[in-house]
């Protein structure tokens, strides 16, 4: 990867069909992300940040342009290749946590490792380590409905981090959390970014998250209007 660039976006366009026409969600975007960045796509609702995040996460494909994620062209990948990229290299954190409701905390965190086929002993160690990072070791047997919002999001972080991915994509991770929990979650992610050198890319319009970002990319109407390195770090 040239200059440790793990994502390279060139002239990305994304259109969604609306009636007989289409809606342009992303309009000729070109961006790059380096390994270990703690960056965020910032902007109001409808600015295209989640769409961009989904394409970077290989959950969606571009209409035009090229998106290289870890040297793989999103949009040209087969279904299996795309699933393998997500499974092995990417971690996702969602606004609504998206924990599997019938699984315990332990099982939720274990899930990505099961998909990767890790042996049981190794799996156990990795899950316990991940839960220790987020401070949830005492809750391994709890189910999501027994946890607070903050705890659920910490489980989601542990699930995203357990396989030590190169890139974590977080879509409005603090939208459903109070200020205290938001700061706790963000501090955890900053720590993981620092210690494991994992790249974090957020989609957010939450000021609390924005205050933690090292790089802020502002989007409006599907276009990048500002790309800046943050001066004040929390």
């Amino acid at each position, binding site marked *: 990867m040239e200059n440790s660039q793990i994502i390279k976006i060139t002239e990305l366009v994304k259109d969604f069909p609306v009636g007989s026409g289409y809606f342009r969600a992303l309009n000729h975007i070109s961006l790059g992300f380096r390994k270990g960045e703690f960056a965020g796509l910032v902007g109001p609702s409808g600015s295209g940040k*989640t*769409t961009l995040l*989904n394409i970077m*996460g290989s*959950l*969606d494909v571009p209409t035009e342009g090229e998106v290289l994620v870890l040297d793989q062209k999103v949009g040209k990948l087969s*279904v*299996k290749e795309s*699933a*393998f990229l*997500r*499974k*092995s290299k990417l971690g*996702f954190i*969602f606004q*609504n946590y*998206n*924990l*599997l*409701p*019938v*699984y315990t905390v332990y*099982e939720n965190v274990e*899930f*990505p490792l*099961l*998909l*990767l*086929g890790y042996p049981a002993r190794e799996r156990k160690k990795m899950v316990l380590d991940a839960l220790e990072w987020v401070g949830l070791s005492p809750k391994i047997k709890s189910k999501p409905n027994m946890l607070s919002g903050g705890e659920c999001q910490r489980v989601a972080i542990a*699930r995203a981090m357990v396989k030590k991915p190169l890139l974590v994509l977080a879509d409005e991770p603090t939208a459903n959390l109070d200020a205290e929990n938001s700061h706790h979650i963000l501090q955890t992610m900053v720590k993981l970014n620092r210690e494991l050198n994992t790249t974090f890319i957020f989609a957010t319009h939450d000021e609390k998250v924005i205050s933690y970002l090292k790089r802020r990319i502002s989007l409006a109407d599907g276009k990048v209007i500002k790309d800046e390195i943050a001066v004040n770090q929390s």
Partner: protein
Amino acid sequence: MLALKLAYKNLIGAGLRTWLNVFVLSLSFVIIIWHKGMLDGWDRQARTDMIAWECGGGQYWQKDYDPYDPYSLTSSHAPVPPSFLAPLRQGKMTAILVTQGSIYPGGRVQSVLIKGIEPEQKILSLPSAVLDSASAGIPVLIGQNMARANRLKTGDVFSMRWRTAGGAFDASDAVVVGIFKSNVPSVDAGQLWVALPTLQKMLDMPGQATLLITSAVNEHPPAIDGWKYRNLEFLLADVENIIKAKTAGGAVLWFILMLLAMLAILDTQVLSIFRRQKEIGTCIALGMTKGQVIRLFTLEGAMHSLFAAVLAFIWGTPLLYLQAKNGIRMPVKGQDFGVSMADVLYPTYGISLILTTTLIVLLTTTIVSYLPSRKIARMNPTEAIRGKIQ
């Protein structure tokens, strides 16, 4: 293996919803097996009774004999072929002579079939030995249904009339020397059994018979001029046809039961896919392909029937075992409808019946689970992650 593990976790995690479906499916399992077991048990009982009371191992019919044509009885008798005399003496065969007659119990006239049988025969279960007794009239043996229909009991005397070989009418008193109980209506209803030598004398047909019953099944019966061999397949065809008709009727019940069970599974699957869109999106985001998610959901549905098979085994086995051991008392008498049916039916549950039922339910459940799961393939994962209804 992973899909199995995940499907198992998901089903167990779904709690009551899973167990309700599993219970409904287990009901279907047990009722389908029970119903088929009843028919198989009836089939076995009917065959056994028909062989024991009427058919033996097979029969030689005088060439004109047609049990469904009473007019044929006048001519359907002939001397026993010489080659059969030895087996008759050895008890390997028994001869039956059949004619028409009338009886007058309580002053009423009743048309009957008079059948002559060797009193010492052991091939049929008929207690013919009682015919070898001295009495004031001709000793006759009748079945329970015949006795009930004509209000006769042991020791009763009534008038009996018949036509001799020469065409003359003759009559005599008859004495009921025995009443037997049989599940086979064709040896009971409207029939009188008398000793063969007596009937031959009454009809003036010495050494003649209408049919000859063999004790053993004969795969290669010798051809005898003037006689037709009827094997068990032929002799049991009527009862087999009745059971086949019942089985076809039973297929409707089977279909309804399966439909109910499958509806429960289909409903659960449709609801599950509708409610678990966020989960589906999450699984895809975490690295599963849509195909893997479809397989997982299909497997979850199919696993219902595996659980149901285990549950059915747990509560169904003792129930079916008790029924097979003690039998089921039938609410109506099959003999009243001319059908060979015991008062108590003993269902038969074979391994093939259980395995076939399990496989059919498993296969059907898998197909029913797969159909709604295909919707996943059309889902947009980015919408699914947000739980947006698609």
